[in-house]
């Protein structure tokens, strides 16, 4: 079991390493880079939504906090980019904690509304705080990340950086899901009362995973800022929060690989649909509807569920619940 899993991860890492060799096209590499950044965001949101069952419609805000903290500190104040990245993480975690304490007492629609409200406030801040953020026209001149003697300024170099981070985040998240707290998260999703009755402090656990997923979003934001060398508020609006939720749902709730798939499909799809011009949005919506109608738990989860259903229904001779 352990061996098979290591082989799977090794194979995935190998594919990632070989991909740019046969595909040295800057456009494709940039697209892959955005898939990587989106994957980090989606895995974090999936831990919160798919595993713990708590929705956030404000995740673009944490992404923005990371991006703007990195952008402002490096472009305006000349702070070391790596230090700025850490500052972004700290700020995002602090904000998530402050928002999470009251918001996570809410459930379902109410939690969605509370996080949505938070997302709107942060977005308005990005637009209005012109002195720091550059306002609606954005902030430019963000330097690239660099190591001594090596600057991540080409799509290929960024590919190496971003996908190393993405691979690390995927592995860390898979490890988390398959651990004591990962089980507690899934337990909380299925029955909060049963989880409480077994000594799980559900409120604290929700807060912990909310802060954790905000950290992922902030990391993705910093990588984003140093990839584009430019940030503008429109990248962190409500539509982007909704798009992230869609990536989680389409790829597969409670599935680490599903997050990668969801981020990949929904990052590539709009690019492919560009040829349909005005019909792009219509087709995009139609694809989402088809997935949701036939595989409501997403591509990866949905197919696994189908298999489980067939397999175990036969075995136990009946289905209840």
């Amino acid at each position, binding site marked *: 079991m352990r061996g098979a899993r290591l082989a799977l991860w090794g194979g995935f890492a190998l594919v990632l390493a070989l991909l740019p060799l046969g595909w040295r096209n800057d456009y494709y590499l940039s697209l892959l880079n955005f898939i990587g950044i989106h994957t980090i965001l989606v895995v974090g949101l999936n831990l919160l939504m798919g595993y713990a069952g708590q929705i956030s419609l404000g995740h673009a805000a944490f992404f923005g906090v990371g991006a703007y903290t990195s952008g402002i500190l490096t472009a305006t104040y000349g702070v070391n980019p790596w230090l700025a990245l850490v500052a972004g993480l700290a700020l995002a975690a602090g904000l998530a904690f402050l928002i999470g304490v009251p918001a996570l007492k809410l459930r379902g629609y109410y939690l969605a509304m509370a996080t949505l409200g938070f997302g709107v406030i942060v977005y308005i801040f990005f637009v209005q705080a012109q002195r720091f953020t550059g306002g609606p026209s954005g902030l430019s001149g963000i330097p690239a990340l660099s190591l001594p003697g090596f600057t991540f300024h080409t799509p290929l170099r960024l590919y190496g950086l971003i996908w190393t981070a993405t691979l690390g985040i995927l592995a860390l998240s898979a*490890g988390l899901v398959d651990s004591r707290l990962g089980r507690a998260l899934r*337990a909380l999703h*299925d*029955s909060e*009362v*049963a989880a*409480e009755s077994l000594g799980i402090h559900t409120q604290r656990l929700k807060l912990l995973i909310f802060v954790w997923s905000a950290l992922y979003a902030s990391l993705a934001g910093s990588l984003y800022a140093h990839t584009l060398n430019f940030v503008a508020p429109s990248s962190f609006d409500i539509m982007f929060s909704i798009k992230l939720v869609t990536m989680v749902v389409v790829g597969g709730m409670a599935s680490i690989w599903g997050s990668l798939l969801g981020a990949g499909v929904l990052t590539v799809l709009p690019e492919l649909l560009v040829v349909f011009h005005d019909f792009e949005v219509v087709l995009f919506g139609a694809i989402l509807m088809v997935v949701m109608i036939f595989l409501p738990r997403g591509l990866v989860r949905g197919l696994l569920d189908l298999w489980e259903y067939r397999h175990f229904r036969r075995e136990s001779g009946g289905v209840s619940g």
Partner: protein
Amino acid sequence: MSVAEAPLLMVSEVSRAFGGLKALEGVSFAVPRGVIKAVIGPNGAGKTTLFHLISGFLKPDRGRILFQGQEIQGRPAHAVAALGIARTFQLVQLFDHMTVLENVMVGRHRLSRAGLLAGALHLPWTRREEAAIREQAYGALELVGLSSRAAQPAGFLPLGLKRLLEIARALASEPTLLLLDEPASGLDQAETERLGELILTLKARGLTLLLVEHDMSLTMEVADEIAVLNYGRLIAEGPPRAIQRHPEVIAAYLGSDWQE
């Protein structure tokens, strides 16, 4: 009175109302160590409310609940569980999307300690802890006879096995006191008999049990002591034989033609 002689659980003058409805009024009783105590009563007598008060899902309006000499009333459910009180639910509450084994592994939560990062990194010590959790969970499954189903998703089990799984999960948390909320409801006769055997096995292993039950034959067979609730009040308490003959109990609950 020494600690060993003191009852494990003391419920003292506990009251709880929902709006104008007095679900429990001045209820007092004790659960001595190592016994099986049953709470019976007609529907709406306040049995489930009593369970929710003891396990921390509800707060009493008045009164005290002492577990091992400590006041626990009003503490949150996870804190009560941490003291060693485990429970099952009248409407089975399983983690349907997790496997049977994983359900029981969650039961080990309070006795293990891997945090977020240590758990995610699968450090050597957390790997050892995981292996121990797995082994102990498997042991609890064997005790209730579910080990052959370990890899199945819990949601697919038939109801009888779901109830057993809920008990196994509670047992995995190594409780001092186990609360069973109508464990036989929805079970057929053979399943109920198996449940009765399991309950007696648990008692033989030194566990103290408090159960709410509708199934009279099961209650009479396994219980050492019975407390009877009616309209939120305790109307009788004693060994099964005395309860069977108690006139108020017969009138309130069992019906005059119940006596064999």
